[in-house]
């Protein structure tokens, strides 16, 4: 059974590129355009991995991450945070909140795919 990957980002072009990448790797892709939607999809579909943008409307990626990690029912959901703000504090904050990995935009597609693969194989 294919792994489910949720892409949560408000930038349509990035969503398109990520969707293409993930599908090419053979994952089942779910989409969310803001924080609220992301949470809903996570609870509803229990994805194996979330590619989570930090700067999203309604709920930031940090809030979503925190919520997911606080919910035992969602313990299996892995989170890879993506941010366009490359500051160290953001990275530290994301990891502190329980994100499994963190990548800054713009990212190398190869690295992203490798990271996703390794996260899903754990």
């Amino acid at each position, binding site marked *: 059974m294919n792994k489910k990957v949720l892409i949560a980002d*408000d*930038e349509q*072009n*990035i969503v*398109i*590129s*990520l969707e*293409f*990448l993930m599908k*090419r790797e053979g994952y089942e892709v779910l989409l969310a*355009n*803001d924080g609220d939607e992301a949470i809903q999809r996570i609870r509803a579909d229990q994805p194996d991995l979330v590619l989570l943008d930090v*700067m999203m*409307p*309604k709920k930031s990626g940090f809030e979503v991450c925190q919520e997911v990690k606080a919910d035992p029912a969602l313990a299996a959901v892995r989170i890879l945070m993506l941010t*366009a*703000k*490359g*500051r160290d504090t953001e990275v530290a904050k994301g990891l502190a909140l329980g994100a499994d990995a963190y990548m*800054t*935009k*713009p*990212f*190398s*597609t*190869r690295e992203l795919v490798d990271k996703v693969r390794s996260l899903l194989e754990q």
Partner: protein
Amino acid sequence: MLPGWLIIGASFAYLLLLFAVAYFGDRRADEGRSIIANPWVFSLSLAVYCTAWTYFGSVGRAASGGTWFLPTYLGPTLGLALAWLVVLKMIRIARSHRITSIADFVASRYGKSHLLGGLVTVIAVVGIVPYIALQLKAISSGYALLIGEHDSLFRVESQAGWWQDGTLYIALTLAAFTVLFGTRHLDTTERHEGMVAAIAFESVVKLAAFLAVGIYVTYWLYDGFGDLYARAMAAPELANVLAFDGVGRLGYGGWFAHVLLAMLSIIFLPRQFQIAVVENVNEQHLRRATWAFPAYLLLINIFVIPIAIGGLLHFGRGTVDPDTFVLTLPMAHDNAALALFVFIGGLSAATGMVIVEAIALSTMVCNDLVMPMLLHSRRLNLAGERDLTGLLLGIRRGAIVGLLLLGYLYFRLAGEAYALVSIGLISFAAVAQFAPAVIGGMYWRGGTREGALAGLLSGFVVWGYTLMLPSFAKSGWLDPGFLEQGLFGLAWLKPEQLFGLAGWDNITHALFWSLLANIGAYVLVSLARVPTGAEATQGALFVDVFRRGESPPASFWRSGAEVRDLVPVVARFLGQRRTEDAFGAYARTHGLRDVSELKADPELVHFAESLLAGAIGSASARVMVSTVVQEEPLGLGEVMDILDEASQVRAYSHKLEEKSRALEAATAELRAANEQLKELDRLKDDFMSSVTHELRTPLTSIRAFSEMMAEDPDIDVEDRQRFLGIIVSETVRLTRLVNQVLDMAKIESGHAEWHNTDIDMRELVQHSVDATMQLFRDRGAEVAVHMPASVPLLRADHDRLLQVMLNLLSNAAKFVPTGAGRVEVTLSCDDARVRVDVRDNGPGIPPEQQPVVFQKFRQGGDERSRPQGTGLGLPISRQIVEHFGGRLWLESVPGEGATFSFELPLASAAAVQ
């Protein structure tokens, strides 16, 4: 009973011994091996305080009032122990100003006033001459007792004619002694080492004699203190001698007043000032004296009560005058040798006082009474004379002889009168009047000449009315009626119960009223005006003498003088040789070879003035120096500037305060600036972070699609086409972002270029609507334009305003609902401004978001469907509108669309025809 020749012989032998001591002292001083440079000699010479009044009178007062004789000795004891700093300050001041008498002290302090010096001298002479008379009387009575001119109760029976009176000859001898050792030469310091040595010697003699008679009475006639006191206890009529009676009769107020009086007199009696201040050779001696002199007083008082008891036991009360017990007790027991020794002791007590008092008073009379009169009356003549040292010495010698003869005359006239026998404390009360002016002058800068004059005069008048006149009345020289009924029959003017103040003894009463009047007048009159330059100068010099050190003060002689003029003026009063010596020494201390190299700078003028001040008093010295040196009168402010360290310190601290206030203000400003900078820094960080984010976002897409296409050649053409389209649009977005960031930075930093032309807003609005028509058409929106027929021309940058319009219109196009969009553009104007409204029927902007949309990188609207934008369009538009003095704002109700409006002022506008 002793033969007269023996007594006179012994007396003169004693006086000869005094001469010898004084001569020895002077010779050693000339050789530079002073015998008085010794704290013991200084302490002993202070004991000139103990006069014949002490010597004979203490026993008398103990016999009548028990311990009531004590305040006179407790005062000086406390005075030296507590107020030695005051005395030290006086010594320091006197030395640095060459002050040679208390009159000069007061005159110098209050601007070198002749009038003040004269007044102090008059008070001193009036108060002290009767006291001299009392000393002569003591010698006279003692002599009469010894040679047997008395009845069985030792009352002196007859008085010989004055030409046969040994007292006259003793007075004349004392005058000769004083002239010899007190006016040997004119010294600028007015120190008399021989005289001081003789006084110290006399203090030893009188102490030894009094102790001798005390031991004789206590241990020879009786069996020690215990025996005497036991007998006194047994005799009811003697009980008061042992009782602490003074408290019961006069109260603590009386004790306080009498102690205070004695405390003041140890400093302000002219003879005490002379010994303690003028004759002091070393300030350190004062330290020893603070306990040695009280110890002396203790010794000389130990046997007072035993002698009083012994006398009363032997003679009984109401028979022999207790004042004579020290003499009559040995005589009654036929101990002639001891009686003679006691007489010599009394003689030493009397002569010591007379000699020092005469020197002190003669200096005052000469410098503060006669010299000023001479300077005033025939000043030109005086200034012309070559050498005036002889004249000065003559005046002083005359004053000494005159004072002693006056004393003798008063003694002959007053006889047994109350005015003479009670003069001791009355005299003290007179000199106590100097206290406010002197002490005030040493510790308060505000004192003025008029204040000191008023204080001294009021105190002196009250003293005269409450003490001197009553003592005359009690002597029978005045109608005693005014004592009983008051002056003019006014009860409140009763001299000893002034304003109805009763219940105190006459001394306490007089001291209270006179000092009250004195201090009151001194302070009030002083406060009436600001001190003049001269007063402030001297005030600062006196008050700050410790801070200033020994260095001569900065001078107030501003104009130059000639040394060849200056030296003769000094020489006229000091003598040629002494003057040359003094100036020579001055030259050497300044590293010059001799007088000829001296420059008449202000310091030298000051030196000359102080030399003269030592000889003729500070006030006269100023007058004399001013005959050859032109003095520019300095204003108070200038004097303060030059001299008054305190005012400098005040000014300095004032400056410091100002500086610290300025610093505080600067700190506050800096803190505010720092806060602002921090805020700016935070904004910059946010800005950078935002810009970074805005740059990374399109880059992310570009990179992702580029990599995917590069790595995967198998992507079908449709996707490839779509991806390339995204890459292109993201590149456009990046470019726009970079341009807008630069644009924003330029406008904000003021580096933007503005190409102003006359703009017709109608044309501009229409142009912008035309340019964006395709956008609206794509979204199926309608645009309606409302414009008046004409608007005035506007002076502004056409392209910039077009940029604003395009931004507003494209924003509207982004947010209107697809297919049902409606945008209204309205141009309007009045006399002052042009206004443009762009109204859409989009979702509107909630109130909390309304201010946010004008911030950089903060886009409004529904993000999911949010069209692409940099978040800089509105901030830039607002900057542009504000650059032209207008404003850009937003009105919106959520759900009912939004209206962005801006208006621009019509400065230098002209209506389009």
